[in-house]
């Protein structure tokens, strides 16, 4: 592990990669602040840039920097405008916005930054401990277990989808899997479901689909319903300091929430949004009576809890991605797609085959969190000016970057028509409250799922591998329980009542 750490340090501290972290965090903060652009859209837009760099460590460092930069930027707009740019920071506005209204915007931003820093750093430490352990277990897995594990991951995403949403999430996952079968698979060497259209021979473009599922509907929503926000507070951000007593009172909150948030982030389908709401709820429940009253009216604990939890969860969501190669959220699914495009297959072999990628990403998480704390926090008053960019300019540019992202990946204008078509479908699906992240996760996992399934079928000459391998059977049983067990739904229903949005 020490050797890995040193390789990671060496890679992460190269000038190029340091610039990537700083650049990624700044871009992420910048765009994450704009209402309506979540981390998924930003990362999807950044992918062509990352891929054309050609160096997987640099690309992943850049994209990870954008990811936590976006979460940080999202909390800034939650606090200043009560307009969360990201679902994961909705809970931060409960107490952050009242604080800003009381003229304590600077203090709120500092608390958010410190809490994010602590959550991210503790998360990265836990990642360092758990990821190697998990991936050494995962090395024992055969294709049968991989197949079962992916089924578990996909069912967990449906199971966490909430009341009345399980069937819809399952449907979307299946649709994603079906879309993944279009084109010429490696295993069979024959085109499937292309309807004779040459452009479909290589399947649907992953970036096109990611753009169509997230960036385009969000932009269309912004067009349809311009958000009216009171930007009275954005001008006056002063007094960034917090007192010793305040620091003392939020320290235990930050400690608890970094750990809780991390483990929620590890679960597939959970992620930053659930972690932040759960963190907020837990801290409110265990706070002393007189402090409980303060929650929702500008409590510093109520701000620190979701901020810590969502950052820790972002880091936690890297565990299944890096160790098993299975993304648990839409954002990590997009990262997985980018990695595959760069010829790196995340999974248990990643630490052995490409230790520099694995460790450099972890090291860059520490650097990234530091960058957010010491570089972005003082710059926030200036970056907040971006919130004043008029919608008339913003939206055409968002649409243009969406188109460019799909175009330069494939250099094919048909891809643009597909993008618009899928984008309209995705918007209709969003109107009807269908979750879109499962579709993308299904699409990305589809190829791997089928490959592993086929390999086990060939090895065992039929589906006997399901009952002849106890671990496979066990995992599949877990998957079944996950879909059927209603207790998860009840738990999410409570969160939903608190206003949880979908995906992160």
């Amino acid at each position, binding site marked *: 592990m020490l050797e890995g750490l040193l390789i990671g340090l060496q890679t992460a501290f190269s000038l190029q990669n340091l610039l990537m972290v700083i650049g990624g965090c700044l871009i992420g903060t910048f765009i994450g602040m704009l209402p309506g652009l979540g981390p998924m859209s930003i990362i999807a837009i950044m992918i062509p840039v990352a891929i054309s760099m050609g160096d997987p460590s640099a690309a992943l460092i850049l994209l990870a920097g954008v990811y936590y930069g976006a979460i940080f930027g999202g909390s800034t707009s939650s606090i200043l405008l009560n307009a969360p740019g990201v679902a994961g920071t909705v809970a931060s506005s409960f107490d952050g916005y009242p604080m800003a209204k009381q003229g304590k915007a600077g203090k709120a931003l500092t608390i958010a930054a410190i809490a994010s820093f602590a959550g991210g750093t503790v998360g990265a430490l836990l990642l360092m401990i758990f990821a190697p352990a998990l991936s050494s277990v995962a090395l024992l897995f055969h294709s049968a277990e991989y197949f079962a594990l992916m089924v578990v991951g996909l069912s967990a995403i449906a199971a966490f989808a909430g009341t009345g949403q399980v069937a*819809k999430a399952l449907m979307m996952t299946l649709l994603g899997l079906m879309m993944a*079968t279009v084109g010429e698979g490696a295993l069979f060497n024959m085109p499937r479901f292309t309807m004779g259209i040459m452009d479909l021979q290589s399947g649907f473009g992953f970036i096109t689909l990611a753009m169509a599922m997230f960036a385009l509907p969000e932009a269309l929503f912004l067009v*349809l319903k311009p958000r009216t926000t009171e930007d009275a507070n954005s001008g006056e951000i002063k007094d960034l300091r917090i007192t010793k007593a305040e620091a003392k009172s939020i320290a235990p909150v930050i400690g608890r929430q970094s750990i809780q948030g991390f483990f929620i982030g590890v679960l597939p389908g959970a992620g930053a949004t659930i972690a932040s709401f759960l963190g907020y709820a837990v801290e409110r429940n265990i706070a002393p009576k007189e402090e409980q009253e303060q929650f929702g009216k500008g409590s510093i604990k109520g701000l620190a809890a979701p901020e810590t939890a969502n950052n820790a969860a972002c880091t936690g969501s890297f565990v299944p991605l890096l160790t098993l190669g299975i993304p648990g959220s839409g954002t990590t699914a997009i990262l997985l797609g980018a990695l595959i495009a760069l010829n790196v297959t995340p999974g248990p072999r990643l630490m052995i085959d490409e230790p520099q990628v694995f460790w450099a990403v972890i090291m860059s998480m520490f650097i990234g969190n530091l960058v957010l704390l010491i570089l972005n926090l003082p710059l926030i008053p200036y970056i907040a000016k971006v919130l004043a960019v008029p919608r008339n300019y913003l939206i055409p540019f968002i649409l243009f970057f969406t188109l460019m992202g799909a175009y*330069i990946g494939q*250099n094919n204008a048909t891809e643009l*028509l597909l993008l618009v078509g899928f984008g309209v479908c995705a918007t209709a699906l969003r109107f*009807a409250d269908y979750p879109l992240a499962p579709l993308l996760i299904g699409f990305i996992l589809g190829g791997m799922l089928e490959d592993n399934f086929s390999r086990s*079928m060939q090895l065992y000459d039929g589906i006997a591998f399901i009952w002849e391998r106890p671990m496979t059977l066990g995992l599949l049983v877990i998957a079944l329980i996950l879909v059927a067990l209603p207790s998860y739904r009840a738990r999410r229903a409570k969160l939903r009542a608190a206003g949880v949005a979908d995906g992160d």
Partner: protein
Amino acid sequence: MALDRWIALILLGICMAYGYAAWFTMDGSLAPFMKRNPIWPSTFPKVLSLMGMVASLIILLGLEKSEAKEAEIDYRRLTEYKLGQAILLLGLMVAYALLLRPAGFIFSTSGFLIFGSFILGERKFHIMVPVSLAATFVVWYLVQEVLGIYLRPMPGFLGG
């Protein structure tokens, strides 16, 4: 019937078409030696089509209870939102897709940005035109020179 169930009906149709293709059209062209394999190219799609049909039927028949939830945008009152702008922008995107190759990157992109902000109600041409042109050139330079991806800048008849 609510929109989500209409969509479930469409998805059921998609699953059935997909299933038809998987069950009845794919195996005929399979080489004889491949028929001895335990897994065929159609195996996985067959399973998917069945599961998809079940899931869409569950949504269509409303077997899963769900509470009414206030959506961000109520599709029943879609005309009260800025639907015209959204449709025009989508049309503009299609036009951009069709024109990008023949008209070249610089013309189509600056046109897209100018018309885009025009549709959204911007009328300050002295700001809009320079901003769009500058952005177009910067993006073209970055993609072409820094990322090294070829984008034809000028229309075909100008030899771009």
